[in-house]
């Protein structure tokens, strides 16, 4: 992408730590952390298993401004236990979302980078994700949009894949992945013929950002650059309000999902789906840069 497209590239979002992403995406110097590392207990559940904890339990939360808007933000650290949700980690996100209901910021940003439930705290993690799910919908019902940003090394899997899809919109990079079960899990349980998790090209054609964008499961495809995520979030907030939860909307989603099961339900590879969508050369999709892919999607038959 060239720099004239609205941002100056420079920092790979995929490569960055959660703290770097916050620095790079939010207005300079605006981030104010809640429960800074020295103030938080380290997970006693990990200690009980003789495993090292982290002082932020793998998620950083706080308030900031984004292009002058007031936002609350959570950033998961994929480098700590795969961004997994344990009891403290989950409670920090729930707390942030409940705070959003009370404070009504202009938006909440969730920088999702997580494989889902932290197995070492499995029950606490599962319940926390359920609490996050309800809290996201309560924030949205209060009229505050919740944006999920997906482009880290752990993607958005398991319960965090569900949480991402409960958000107002998902911004994803080509490197981002979004799904429920990880390919490794499917391969382990169902066999390598079902899903070869070592076949990275296949994994991306099934779970990757380009596929999710082409299918409309993610609202925006952005470059793997923190500045592009920032710009994408700003553009989304400029052009979208947060509608009240309604029967009409969910009926429309129900119809859309049902129609697409009929149309695409038998496919097992992104290549088949893209061909059916009207992409003339589906095998070229993985090679296209971001701008070309966005142009391609805009040109597809409605």
């Amino acid at each position, binding site marked *: 992408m060239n720099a004239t497209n609205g941002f100056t590239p420079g920092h790979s979002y995929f490569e960055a730590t959660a703290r770097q992403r916050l620095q790079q995406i939010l207005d300079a110097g605006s981030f104010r952390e*809640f*429960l800074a590392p020295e103030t*938080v207990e380290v997970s*006693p*559940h990990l200690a*009980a*298993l003789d495993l090292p904890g982290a002082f932020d339990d793998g998620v950083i939360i706080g308030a900031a401004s984004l292009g002058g808007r007031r936002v609350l933000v959570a950033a998961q650290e994929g480098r700590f236990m795969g961004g997994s949700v344990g*009891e403290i980690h*989950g*409670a*920090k996100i*729930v*707390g942030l979302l*409940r*705070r959003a209901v009370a404070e009504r910021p202009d938006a909440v940003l969730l920088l999702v980078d997580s494989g889902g*439930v932290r*197995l*070492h705290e*499995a*029950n*606490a*993690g*599962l*319940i926390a994700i*359920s*609490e996050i*799910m*309800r*809290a996201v*919908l309560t924030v949205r*019902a209060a009229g505050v949009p919740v944006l999920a940003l997906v482009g880290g090394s752990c993607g958005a899997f*398991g*319960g965090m894949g*569900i949480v*991402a*899809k409960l958000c107002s919109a998902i911004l994803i990079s080509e490197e981002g992945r*979004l*799904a*429920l*079960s990880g*390919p490794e899990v*499917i391969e382990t349980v169902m066999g390598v013929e*079902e*899903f070869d998790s070592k076949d990275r090209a296949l994994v991306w054609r*099934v*779970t990757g950002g380009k596929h999710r964008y082409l299918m409309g*499961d993610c609202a925006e495809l952005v470059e793997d650059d923190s500045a592009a995520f920032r710009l994408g979030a700003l553009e989304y907030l400029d052009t979208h309000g947060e509608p009240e*939860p309604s*029967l009409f909307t*969910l009926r429309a*989603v*129900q119809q859309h*999902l*049902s129609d697409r*099961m009929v149309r*695409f*339900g038998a496919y*097992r*590879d*992104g290549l088949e789906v893209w061909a059916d969508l009207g992409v003339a050369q589906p095998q070229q999709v993985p090679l296209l840069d971001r701008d070309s892919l966005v142009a391609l999607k805009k040109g597809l038959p409605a």
Partner: protein
Amino acid sequence: MKLNNLLDALFPAGHTVTVTDQTLTGTATTAAGPVTVLGTMDGAAISHDIALRLADCILQTIESAPGRPLVFLVDTSGQALSRQQELLCLNGSLAHLAQCVDLARRQGHASVSLVNEQAVSGGFLSFGLMVDRTYALADAQVRVMDLKAMARVTKIAHERLMELASNSPIFAPGAESYRRMGAIEAIWEAPSAQLLETALVELAKGAGLADQRMTVGLARGGRYLAADVTAAVLAAD
């Protein structure tokens, strides 16, 4: 337990429930009034089709029977594990189902779920844990994964996990762990029309509108960090 025995015990005044592809939908009569009955059976792995069928039943209830409670019967082994399902964003269909449960709550439909056989991870998240109140039968299995698989994935010895599980509800599979942590309201020794009615009457007064599971988990001594951490976030400068 056979589905009909379960339905007869919960709804002695009558029920009309049909089963399609491990998904049940229908209506029943309770002392608290008519309810929509829906859910899954035989350890269903939640697929797009199952999620959409349940979601449709919820939306139909909102459309045609304002305020009618939803009673979910939960028996799920988790989410469907297949490339085909993931290709079409299975997490999206599960999120849609969860959103329908949430919309029903906002539109005045009380909701309860009863785990009668098993409830596992994603399948449990999408509806069983989204309702106002979750209950489980005493012999129901509730878990993210069993300890043997957990030992394999975490590379922690199975014996060690067994030992820790015996005194911590944090990862010990079982409905009782979830009760102590506040996610399951109560464990029923047997399916009971009386207990169901009591739950519905309480929820009709609005008892399920706010998510109280953290507070309950703290009071029951099963989850002692989450409530304090959340409170600290709310109070942070």
